[in-house]
């Protein structure tokens, strides 16, 4: 597994980080240490996928906030041909990327997919997501321990004439 | 999209609704008329889905004892069925107007 690039994580720090991530899940405690997500846990981020809104999901997954960056190129259609299959991809020129995630703001659960990018893997992902309705799609890239984002609105509606 | 639909139903629907509450006999008569028109439309292979659902709604309301609603739904079903019959007959020739030549 890759070593984290942030402050050298002593055992105590990781435990504290893990503890506060868990507490954070309840969404009421301010967050202290910020473990780089890729190293912190290898298991499925169940907590983050349970969050309804985007901000909680980002906190639960990364434990920090992102800043928009034009180095993150998010490619999504203007009008989705179908809400069930929306081709969305992201690529970035940032380096030391450890994780990429996609959020669909007004979906029942904001976090759609999260990818871990080990060393040697290029920082770009394409996938097909479901979108409940017209809303913002956000791609988050974790590079060198910091979070960068790009957002785009995708219009979604049903097709057909009546029925 | 010019929505032109030769609808005899509109004339039928604009009749003044009867003042006293509908009873089962009124409903049965209206339902029979609606069903006959619906069968004729189906016979012309031009049935509408809304006719079928209006008939079903009429039956359901009648089973529930609400004959006012049942009568209204049966009348609507009949009007819709008549409209689809009118559509089928007028389209027998009207389709040529749209044909690419």
């Amino acid at each position, binding site marked *: 597994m890759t070593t984290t690039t942030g402050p050298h994580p002593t055992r105590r720090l990781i435990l504290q980080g893990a503890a506060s991530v868990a507490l954070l899940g309840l969404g009421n405690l301010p967050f202290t240490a910020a473990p780089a997500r890729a190293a912190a846990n290898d298991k499925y981020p169940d907590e983050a996928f349970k969050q309804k809104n985007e901000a909680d999901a980002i906190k639960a997954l990364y434990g920090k906030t992102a800043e928009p960056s034009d180095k993150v190129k998010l490619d999504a*259609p*203007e*009008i*989705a*041909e*179908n*809400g*069930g*299959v929306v*081709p969305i991809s992201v690529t970035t020129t940032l380096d030391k990327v450890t994780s990429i995630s996609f959020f669909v703001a007004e979906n029942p659960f904001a976090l759609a997919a999260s990818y871990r990018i080990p060393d040697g893997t290029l920082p770009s992902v*394409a996938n*097909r997501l479901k979108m409940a309705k017209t809303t913002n799609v956000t791609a988050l890239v974790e590079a060198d321990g910091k979070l960068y984002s790009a957002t785009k609105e995708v*219009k*979604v*509606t*049903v*097709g*057909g*004439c*009546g*029925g | *999209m*010019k*929505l*032109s*639909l*030769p*609808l005899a139903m*509109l004339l039928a*629907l604009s009749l003044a609704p009867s003042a006293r509450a509908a009873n089962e006999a009124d409903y049965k008569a209206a339902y029979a008329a609606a069903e006959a028109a619906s069968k004729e439309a*189906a016979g012309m*292979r*031009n*049935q*509408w*889905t*809304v006719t*079928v659902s209006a008939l079903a709604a009429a039956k359901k309301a009648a089973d529930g004892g609400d004959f006012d609603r049942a009568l209204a739904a049966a009348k609507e079903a009949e009007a*819709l069925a008549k*409209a*689809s019959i*009118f*559509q089928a007959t*007028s*389209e027998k*020739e*009207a*389709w*040529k*107007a*749209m*044909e*690419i*030549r």
Partner: protein
Amino acid sequence: MKPRIPLLLGSLSAALVAFVLTSPGVVAADKVDPVADAKAFQNFFFQKFPNVKHEDFVNGPYSMNEDMKRQWQEKEEFPPYEFALDAGKEMFSTPFKNGKSYADCFPNGGIGIRQNYPYFDEKEGKVVTLELALNRCREANGEAPYSYVKDEMASLTAYMAYTSRGKLMDIKIPDDPRALAAFENGKRYFYTRRGQMNFSCASCHVQSPGERIRAEILAPALGILNAMPIYRSEWSGMGTTSRRFVTCNSQTRAVPLEPQADEYRDVEYFLSYVANGLPISGPGARP
């Protein structure tokens, strides 16, 4: 919401128009001339969309809109009908209980022949579509027929379409008055308005291809069956021609006919004939 008043005005004007048009025009259109019809049909679309390459019409909505075309090309890299294709190939090579297989029912073993379907069967005096021929093949070999709107039929036709990809649609109308009548009946069905919405196939696919109907871009009628069967994201599954006709009917609030009804077979015959010369692009991926 019952749009009463506009319908009343609409109906009066329509009745008037219908009356005016039927009297003089009917004389000219009596003799059925499929060759002229096909030429007029194709020219209509070539002139209406001069910068769409002729063979692109078979890509339906994607020939009409760049943003949609990009989404389609992304999907085509690894198309969602991949599984139906493999299933179809497997079914095609698995013999029936009596040892025979689909290959024995079709010319050239069923490979690369989709472009000749539907054809007019002079013995039966009716149009036979690929789906009907497949089910007849199953019944002739003691197997239960498949549903016309479910995945098995879609997988079989997907595989057969795939083996014909790129070949030009080549539908024949024999010199038989019943074949001409079937062609004309298909044309009549295509242009006839139905359902409470009072739309015909032409209302959408001739009058307004390229325009949106809520989220979807309407496909041009020219070449619309060349991509069949299609994987529709809306159904998140495969759809045969029968399924497409049935769902289109119910969208205009017309009660659909039974799959493979004469009208559906004839309209498939008409639409395929007028697309002669355009390539087969099935199986397709659509919104």
